[in-house]
């Protein structure tokens, strides 16, 4: 029996430590992992817990990220709680198996510490890996700080493992900005955290020897469409209500309020920035400064990236006159993904908002408050004129001649 880890009410943890403690408290049965910057400390911390008697489960030190996720899939199909962590190139190597995990309806939890994808090689945080995963059939939850990472990890097990859902979840945090920045984290005791998640309830488990089951079949044109539709249906209809329910219970337990779409200063906002990750908090600081000056500038943070809360986002932005979507991933040939998502959410509504797109922070480049002030200024002029007064897509924080498109 694993020892109880006595936590203080408040700990000073970086995002990686927050994730490690959440995995420990979840009493994960099998962790199979391969270290990669900046997610490495998650598995190092876990190894440390293991070495000191705080873990009962198995810990597989795989030979690659692909091998790690492959072991996770086998372990999950066998019937138990499974989690791992990765970043960037490792995430890319895993990608094939990510589709397998979701298609096989296996509730694996993957901590993705977001990092750029080379070439050129880069170890710092941007959202390239998160974006690469967005069609893989996983639930994707985004965190802005270590507290979020802790809470969302606990929540992820509870949501993923629900028998109405049975879909894997990625818990995203920004490489270094969140993963290596120590901040105050309000903890739950081991008991309370575990009970919030609940016991693992097996389903279609290979280790139920009286009920043999075949996992990972081939489905051709007569069947494939129906199975993919069923998977999409679960992602679309069951996940958001279950996350909301978990948010509500978490609020009772911890006093912390999470929302499917996080809106800050949005009540009568005329201009808004939509962004993800640690940028949400920076944008909020700027928003507060502007608000103090009487400028109605708000921030919308994406909390649940997949399934995409299309209706809730449209609702959050309905009163805005100008909106900027901030994408921290090279769009490589089109507008940023978030621009497309938000445009899609707003298109059939009554909005007359002007929508623009900023590409920022690639490879870990800081998103400065100065840049955010510039963006809000441009939004104000868009709101005033009712037209796009800037190019549709602009690179911000980039050296050299101004780069923009459309």
């Amino acid at each position, binding site marked *: 029996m694993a020892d109880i880890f006595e936590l203080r009410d408040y700990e000073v943890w970086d995002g990686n430590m927050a994730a490690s403690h959440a995995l420990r408290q979840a009493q994960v049965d099998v962790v199979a992992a391969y270290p990669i910057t900046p997610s490495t400390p998650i598995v190092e911390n876990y190894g440390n817990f293991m070495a000191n008697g705080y873990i009962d489960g198995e810990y597989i030190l795989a030979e690659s990220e692909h091998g790690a996720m492959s072991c996770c899939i086998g372990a999950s199909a066998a019937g138990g709680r499974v989690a791992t962590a990765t970043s960037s190139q490792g995430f890319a190597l895993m990608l094939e198996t990510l589709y397998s995990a979701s*298609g*096989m*309806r*296996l509730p694996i939890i993957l901590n993705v510490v977001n990092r750029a994808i080379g070439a050129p090689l880069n170890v710092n945080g941007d959202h390239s890996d998160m974006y690469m995963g967005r069609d893989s059939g996983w639930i994707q939850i985004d965190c802005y700080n270590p507290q979020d990472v802790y809470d969302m990890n606990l929540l992820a097990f509870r949501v993923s493992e629900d028998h109405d859902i*049975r879909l894997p979840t990625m818990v995203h945090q920004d490489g270094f900005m969140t993963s290596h920045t120590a901040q105050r984290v309000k903890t739950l005791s081991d008991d309370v955290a575990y009970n919030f998640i609940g016991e693992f309830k097996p389903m*279609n488990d290979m280790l139920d020897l*009286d*009920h*043999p*089951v*075949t*996992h990972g*079949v081939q*489905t051709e044109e*007569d*069947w494939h*469409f*129906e*199975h993919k*539709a*069923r*998977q999409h*249906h*679960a992602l679309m209809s069951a996940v958001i209500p279950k996350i909301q329910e978990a948010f509500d219970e978490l609020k009772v337990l911890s006093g912390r309020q999470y929302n499917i779409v996080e809106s800050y200063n949005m009540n009568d906002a005329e201009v808004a920035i939509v962004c993800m990750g640690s940028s949400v908090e920076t944008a909020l600081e700027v928003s507060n400064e502007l608000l103090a000056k009487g400028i109605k500038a708000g921030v919308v943070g994406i909390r649940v990236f997949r399934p995409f809360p299309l209706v809730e986002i449209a609702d959050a932005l309905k009163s805005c006159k100008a909106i900027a979507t901030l994408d921290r991933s090279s769009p490589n040939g089109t507008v940023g993904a978030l621009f497309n998502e938000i445009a899609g959410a707003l298109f059939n509504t009554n909005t007359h908002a002007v929508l623009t797109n900023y590409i920022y922070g690639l490879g870990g480049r800081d998103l400065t408050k100065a840049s955010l002030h510039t963006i809000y200024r441009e939004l104000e002029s868009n709101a005033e004129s009712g037209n796009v007064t800037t190019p549709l897509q602009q690179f911000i924080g980039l050296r050299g001649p101004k780069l923009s498109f459309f």
Partner: protein
Amino acid sequence: MIENGWNQFEIGSVLRPFSGEVSDVSVIQPEDRLYSASNSFSVSVADWRIEKPLFKKELCIDCQFCWIYCPDMSIISRDKKMIGVDYDHCKGCGICVQVCPTTPKALLMFPEQADEEIELAQWPKKETQETKEN
């Protein structure tokens, strides 16, 4: 199952070989198993065959070579005795005939449409044609 809509399949496209619970399938012979419709056992591949093996019981010495080398679980052996061929699952490869050690052979290949009674009656004659290849 082909009529089923998207909401009528098990999630994760899992398949179950049996209907309900099985305790220890390693000691239960097919006739006593509750196969599900999803088990390939429930399907026939008889139409794959161009030729079929016929079995002449009187010549069989129950060596079980045909049983061990049959790739399609189609040699029915019970209590150490060869009983016959499972024509739902036999693909007509002919391995059983090749490995049959008796002279004349207790298993021979015939066209799929051949009449079993007639061929069994003519057995020795067929035998002499077949064995010269071996």
